[in-house]
């Protein structure tokens, strides 16, 4: 209420901006909230590709990839107090064509993920209805209601949106511990069968590489914390703190999830399940834990959809504000101080993807868009350190061992492209064609509307050599 009054008072001034009300806990809620659904579903397809052992190898290698992402993002974003995250980084450090592409990667990665999350909510309701003897429940009303409710929440203000995300994400995280204690995870072979963990590699080392594509689910979206840069009270402190603690949370959650589900359910079944945590709870045979995991799965999907609406809208808004898209999208609501036109515009887009019902295709498009964004980061980091060396600009966080994290990130991205090509080669080529076509459109038809000087408003020193 106080925030709304403050927002309204500010709205009467000449210039309007997004509201700076967020702290590190909100940043954590945004990053972990988007990702945690991957600990409840999706990650398990890596078990189908590489077996239980192959999955944990892929989980930790992809964990290394995302740790590099979090470190690089934390350093660059601690200097960029602008919505748009990696889009704004690319605009300042590399150039307009890269920025346009990165902006598109972000919008598609998050909007597709939002649609996939809403589909999960619908599928979960169908599953729950089936458990109660109701067959053929239509999931569509649940899909639409999830998106409409979260869009409404996002429209009404970022503080309440991310406070809700913090609560439901924390509940979903605690639910994994409930499963751990109920299964007595510390006692070997009581419920968690050790033999199920150290299986042979069913498809050899190529299967482990193939598992990389789905191991991305353990962490996909942690880089979304950067989108809050314009709304945190202290960008130099909150963003690195929220992102790095979020990454630690996910490494713990991912390892526990693998340990519990692979120990409770045979890998051959787990590798094809759509609701693996829920299935693991059912295998335990404890109705209370089954209910907790149902709530955990539901809350994680809702938190993820909530965070993705927030992030996709900020990326779209930033591109509109810089005229990379029609400037109309760069409007801020005078009362709620949110990018309300961008939020509303992306609602029918998400619903239409949700209505396709093609969960695996939607998820693959999201993962590939995310992966393209990660590949840009090492290039970005090298240019950032060269053009603004340490000491030339105030950084809230300096990541250690440069250039090793950037080189590691690039190498792991290449391996993951190969893994994606093994499973979804046609989609990879189709998506590359789409982004190339979009780049040509931007270069020939859109860039003429961009006012080159207007897009750089931050008080940065000139880059070295200019």
């Amino acid at each position, binding site marked *: 209420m106080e925030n709304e009054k403050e927002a309204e008072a500010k709205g009467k001034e000449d210039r309007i901006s997004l509201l700076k009300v967020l702290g590190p806990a909100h940043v954590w809620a945004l990053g972990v909230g988007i990702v945690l659904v991957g600990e409840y579903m999706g990650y398990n397809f890596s078990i189908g590709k590489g077996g239980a052992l192959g999955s944990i190898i892929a989980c930790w290698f992809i964990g290394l990839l995302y740790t590099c992402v979090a470190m690089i993002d934390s350093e660059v974003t601690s200097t960029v107090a602008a919505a748009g995250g990696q889009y704004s980084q690319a605009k300042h450090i590399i150039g307009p064509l890269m920025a346009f592409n990165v902006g598109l990667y972000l919008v598609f990665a998050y909007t597709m993920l939002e649609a996939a999350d809403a589909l999960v909510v619908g599928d979960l309701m169908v599953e729950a209805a089936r458990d109660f003897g109701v067959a053929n429940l239509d999931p569509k009303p649940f899909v639409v209601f999830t998106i409409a409710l979260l869009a409404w929440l996002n429209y009404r203000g970022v503080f309440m949106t991310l406070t809700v995300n913090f609560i439901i994400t924390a509940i979903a995280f605690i639910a994994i511990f409930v499963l751990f204690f109920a299964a007595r995870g510390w006692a070997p072979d009581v419920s968690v069968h050790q033999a199920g963990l150290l299986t042979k590699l069913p498809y050899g080392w190529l299967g482990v590489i193939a598992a990389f594509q789905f191991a991305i689910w353990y962490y996909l979206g942690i880089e979304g914390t950067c989108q809050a840069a314009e709304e945190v009270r202290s960008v130099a402190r909150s963003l690195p703190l929220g992102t790095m603690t979020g990454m630690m949370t996910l490494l713990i959650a991912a390892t526990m999830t693998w340990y519990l589900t692979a120990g409770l359910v045979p890998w051959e079944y787990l590798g094809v399940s759509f609701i693996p945590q829920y299935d693991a709870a059912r295998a335990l045979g404890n109705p209370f834990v089954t209910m907790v995991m149902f709530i955990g799965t539901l809350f994680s999907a809702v938190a993820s959809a909530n965070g993705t609406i927030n992030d996709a809208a900020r990326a779209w808004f930033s591109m509109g504000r810089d005229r990379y898209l029609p400037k109309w999208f760069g409007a801020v609501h005078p*009362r709620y101080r949110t990018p309300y036109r961008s939020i509303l515009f992306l609602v029918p887009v998400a619903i239409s993807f949700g209505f396709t019902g093609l969960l695996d295709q939607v998820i693959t498009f999201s993962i590939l868009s995310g992966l393209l964004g990660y590949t840009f980061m090492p290039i970005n980091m090298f240019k950032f350190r060269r053009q603004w060396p340490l000491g030339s600009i105030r950084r809230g966080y300096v990541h250690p061992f440069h250039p090793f994290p950037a080189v590691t990130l690039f190498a792991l991205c290449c391996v993951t492209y190969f893994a994606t090509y093994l499973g979804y080669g046609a989609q990879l080529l189709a998506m590359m064609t789409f982004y190339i076509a979009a780049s040509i459109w931007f270069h020939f038809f859109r860039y003429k509307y961009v006012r080159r000087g207007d*897009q750089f408003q*931050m008080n940065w020193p000139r880059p070295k050599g200019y």
Partner: protein
Amino acid sequence: MNIFNLLGYACWVGSAFLVLWLLVDFFKTNSQFEEDFLLSSREGHDEITDQEKSFAADRENKK
């Protein structure tokens, strides 16, 4: 008719209400405020820094 089907209908009604609310507020906001004002945000514009600058200027003036 079971509880899940009823829940489905409730979701349709709830969605319609929320989307209607969003559309009404959207058109109201667009008509109530000048377009230049709605589009006036700038990246890196930091109210907190601005406030600190204005407080520092006030302190200087008092001296």
